[in-house]
C-alpha cells in the first residue's frame, strides 16, 4: 500500500481549492497593522486592542481568534497577498463578486474564470467532477456555456430518483432520463434564450447522472481521526477531503464562507467567522496530511472587497483593497506585495485602502505556477505574477 501511494504521489495532478469569503472581509481586522497609531484612531469602535492581537511579524498581527493562521504562517505554509484588488474598485457586492468571478471589471461577462479552467482541463466534458462546488448553488466563477461543474449540497444523499426502490425500474428510468437530457445543437438556434436554457438543463442533467454514479461510494470510503467543528465552512472543507481522497479526478474545489458584510455589529460577528475559518482550514490540512494527500493541493482564500478605513461606529462600510491567502504545503510562506498605505493622505477617495496588486495576477500565478496552464486567455490579459511556491 505504501509504495503504491508513493508512486501515485509523483503523478498526482495539481488541485486548486478556492474559499470565497462572501460579503467583503475586513482585511484591516484580519491582518492588523497593530503598531500603527492610525489603526487605533480610525477603528475606535471596530478595532482590536494591541494586547489582544496575534503578532506574526514586527508590525503585523492576526485577528485575536485566528491563532490557527499564526501557526500556519509560522510553519511557512501561508502566503499573504496584501492589498489585492483592481482599479476603480466597485462597492456593489453583486457586481464586485461578478468581477472577481469573470476577470472582467469593465463589462458583464458570461464566462467564469474557473469554468474556462475546466474547459482547458477537460475540453470534451468527460468528467463532470472536474470541478465541484460544495454548498447551495453554483458560483458564477464555475459557470460558462457548455461547461459542466457539479454542485453538491449534501454529499451523503446525492443521486436521481433515489426513492424508486425497484432497481431495474430505476435504471430503466435513468436510461430514458439520459435520452431526454441529451443536448441538441438545434436548440441553440432557438430565436429565444429558451434554447440556451434547454441545452443548459440537458448538460446539467447528464452531468448529474454521471457524477452521482461516481460519488455514491465516497461517504462510505472516507475515514478520518480529524473532528471538524459544526459550521458550514468546516463541513464544506471536510467534503473536499472526502472527495479528493476518493481520487475521482477533481481538480477544482469551490467552497464559500458567508456573512462578512459587517456594516453593523462587526465585532462579535467577525470574531466568530475568523475562528471558524482559521480552525476549519487547519483541520482541513491536518486531514489531508493524514490521508497523504496534501502535497498536490493549494488553497486560495479571497473576498470581493475590503472595507472602509474608518468604522461607522458599529461596523464598516464597503471599501476596497482587501487581502487574500494562498495556503498549502508547496507554498513558500510569507508576505507578498505591499500592505496598502494606511496613511490618510494616501487613502483612495479619501476613505479606502488602495490596492497594490491586481487580482488577475494572483489568479495567473495559481494557474501558471500551480496548475500548469497558460493564464492569458483565462484572466484576459498578462498580469504581473507572484512567486509564492517552493
Amino acid at each position, binding site marked *: 500500500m505504501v509504495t503504491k501511494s508513493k508512486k501515485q504521489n509523483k503523478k498526482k495532478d495539481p488541485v486548486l481549492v478556492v474559499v470565497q469569503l462572501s*460579503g467583503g472581509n475586513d482585511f484591516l481586522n484580519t491582518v492588523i497593522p497593530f503598531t500603527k497609531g492610525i489603526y487605533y484612531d480610525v477603528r475606535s469602535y471596530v478595532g482590536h486592542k494591541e494586547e489582544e492581537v496575534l503578532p506574526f511579524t514586527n508590525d503585523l498581527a492576526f485577528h485575536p481568534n485566528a491563532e490557527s493562521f499564526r501557526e500556519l504562517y509560522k510553519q511557512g505554509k501561508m502566503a499573504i497577498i496584501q492589498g489585492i484588488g483592481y482599479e476603480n474598485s466597485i462597492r*456593489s*457586492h*453583486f*457586481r464586485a463578486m*461578478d468581477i472577481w468571478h469573470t476577470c472582467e471589471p469593465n463589462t*458583464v461577462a458570461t464566462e467564469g474564470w474557473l469554468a474556462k479552467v475546466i474547459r482547458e482541463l477537460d475540453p470534451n466534458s468527460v468528467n*463532470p467532477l472536474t470541478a465541484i*462546488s460544495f454548498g*447551495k*448553488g*453554483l458560483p*458564477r466563477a464555475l*459557470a460558462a456555456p457548455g461547461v*459542466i*461543474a*457539479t*454542485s*453538491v449540497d*449534501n454529499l451523503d444523499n*446525492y*443521486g*436521481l*430518483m*433515489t*426513492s*424508486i426502490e425497484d432497481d431495474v*425500474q430505476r435504471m430503466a*428510468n435513468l436510461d*430514458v*432520463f439520459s*435520452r*431526454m*437530457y441529451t443536448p*441538441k445543437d438545434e*436548440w441553440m438556434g432557438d430565436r*429565444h*434564450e*429558451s434554447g*440556451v*436554457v*434547454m441545452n*443548459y*438543463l440537458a448538460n*446539467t*442533467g447528464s*452531468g448529474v447522472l454521471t*457524477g*452521482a454514479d461516481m460519488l455514491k461510494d465516497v461517504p462510505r470510503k472516507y475515514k478520518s481521526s480529524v473532528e471538524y467543528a459544526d459550521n458550514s465552512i468546516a463541513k464544506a472543507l471536510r467534503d473536499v477531503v472526502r472527495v479528493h481522497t476518493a481520487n475521482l479526478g477533481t481538480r477544482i474545489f469551490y467552497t464559500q464562507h*458567508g*456573512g462578512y*458584510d459587517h*456594516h*453593523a*455589529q462587526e465585532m462579535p460577528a467577525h470574531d466568530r467567522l475568523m475562528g471558524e475559518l482559521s480552525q476549519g482550514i487547519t483541520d482541513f490540512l491536518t486531514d489531508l496530511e493524514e490521508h497523504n494527500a496534501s502535497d498536490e493541493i493549494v488553497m486560495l482564500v479571497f473576498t470581493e472587497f475590503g472595507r472602509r478605513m474608518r468604522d*461607522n*461606529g*458599529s*461596523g464598516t*462600510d464597503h471599501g476596497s483593497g482587501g487581502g487574500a491567502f494562498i495556503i498549502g504545503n508547496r507554498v513558500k510562506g510569507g508576505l507578498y506585495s505591499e500592505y496598502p498605505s494606511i496613511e490618510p493622505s494616501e487613502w483612495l477617495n479619501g476613505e479606502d485602502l488602495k490596492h497594490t496588486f491586481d487580482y488577475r495576477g494572483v489568479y495567473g500565478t495559481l494557474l501558471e505556477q500551480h496548475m500548469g496552464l497558460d493564464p492569458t486567455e483565462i484572466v484576459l490579459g498578462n498580469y504581473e505574477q507572484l512567486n509564492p511556491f517552493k
Partner: protein
Amino acid sequence: MATEKSLIAHLYRRAGFGTTPEMLEKLSKKDYDSIVDDLVDIEKFEELPDEDVLSRYYPQLSSCDNFGLDNVKWFYRMLNSKKPFQEKMTLFWHHVFATGWTKSEQGPSIIDHIAMLRKNCLSNLRVLLSELSADPAMIFWLDNCENHGENINENFGRELLELFSMGIGNYTEDDIKEASRAFTGWTFEQPMPLYPYGHFKSHFIYDENDHDEGKKKFLGQEGNFNGGDIIEIIVKTEACANFISRHIYNFFVADEPQIPAWSIEPPQDQEAMKILVHTFLDSDADIKEVMRVLFKSDFFKNSRFKRVKCPAEFIASTLKLTTELGPKDIRLGKLHGLSAVMGQTLLDPPTVEGWHTGKEWIDGGSLTERINYAVDLISDMNNTGSKDLVERIVASKSELSSEELVKKILENIGELEVSDQTHEQLLEIASEGPSVGNGKDSKEIRQKIIRLYTLLVSSPEFQLA
C-alpha cells in the same frame, strides 16, 4: 397556436402557483380577460382563515429564534389562498427588496416585513417604497438605524437607488449620500434586549432629533428633503419606470440576464418594455394597472415556458398538482428545509441583491433535489392529486393510441409543452406494455401511467414555467 386552456394554465403558473386538471376545467368556462381581472382584483375574494392554526401543529418550529414556521405558513398560503396572485406578488417583491433573517437582532420583524409586502403588493409604488423605508426589518438589514444626522451610513440610501428603484448608472455617489441624509432619523424603537430575552419585534419611529434638517441636492433637485420627498422624486423618473418594469418582466414574463448586466444589456423585448413603462408612467406608478395590462398582453401570452421556475414556485406548483395540503399535514413542516436545499430560503435571501434567477436556479445539486421531489410526489398514490391524475387516464372511455395517451398526460400536467426529443421518449414508453383506455384497468396499466408521469416530471421542460 395556444388553446384558451393552455393560456389559462400559463396565467396560473405565472400569476399563481399552478393548477390541477379540475381547476383548469372549471376556469376554462370563463373567458381569459375576466380570469385576469379575478386574479388581479384580489379584494373581491376572502382572506384565508388565519394560518396561525399551524403554530399548534408544529411546536418544534414555533420558536422566536427560528423563522422556519413562518416559511411553512407562507407555503400554506401559496397553496390554499383564494388570492394566489397576492402571494405571487409578495414573492416578487421579496425577490426585489431582498431582506433576510440572518442579520437578525430584530429577527421576528421579518415576519411583519413580509406581511407589509403582502398588504402593499399591489399598492402604488410610492406607498410600497415608503412602507419599505419605515420597515424595522429593512432598517436593521441595511443599517438605517446607524444612519445618523451627524454621521451617515449610506447602506440603505445606496440600495434604495441601486437595487430597489432605479438601477446602477442613473444617479451619482453624491445622490446616494444626499438620499442617505434624507433618511436620517428613520429608525426603530429599541425592542427588548436580545440577551437574555431572545428575539422580539420592533416598531418604526421617526427621530426628528437625529434627522439632518439641512438642504439636500438630489437628482438635480434642491430642497430640505425628507425620506418621503426622495421617494416622490424617484417614482417620477423614467429610470424607475424602466427598472421596475424590467423586474416585473423578468419575474412574470421571461428570464432576463442577472440584474448587474441590466445597465449594459438592453431588455430582450423592447416593445413589451415600452408597454410596461408607458403604463407605469401613465398610471403614476400604479402597480396593479401595470400587472393587469401585462397579463392581457400578447407578449405575455407568447411567453409560455420561457422562465425557469424558482424553488418556491417549483415546490408549490408541484404540490398543488399532486396533493392537498391541509394544516395538519406533517409534510408542510419539511418545506422550509426543502426550499433551502433547492437554493431559496424564503425570508432569508443570501444578500440584499436577492437570488440569482433564471437558469442560475439550476445546477447539479438543485436539479437533483427538484427532480427527486417531484418524482416522490407524483408516484405516491396516497396523494389525492397524483391519484386523480392516474384515474383520469384510466377512466378514458375509448382506447388511447400512444399519441393520445401522451397528449392526455401532458394536458394534465398544466398543458405542458415538450421538445420532440422528450416527446419521442414518452411515446416509446406509451407504446410498451398494455394498452390504456376503453374501461380497462390493471396494476400494469396503472404502473405504466405512473411511470409516464414520473418521467414527465423528470423532464427538462418540467423545470420551466
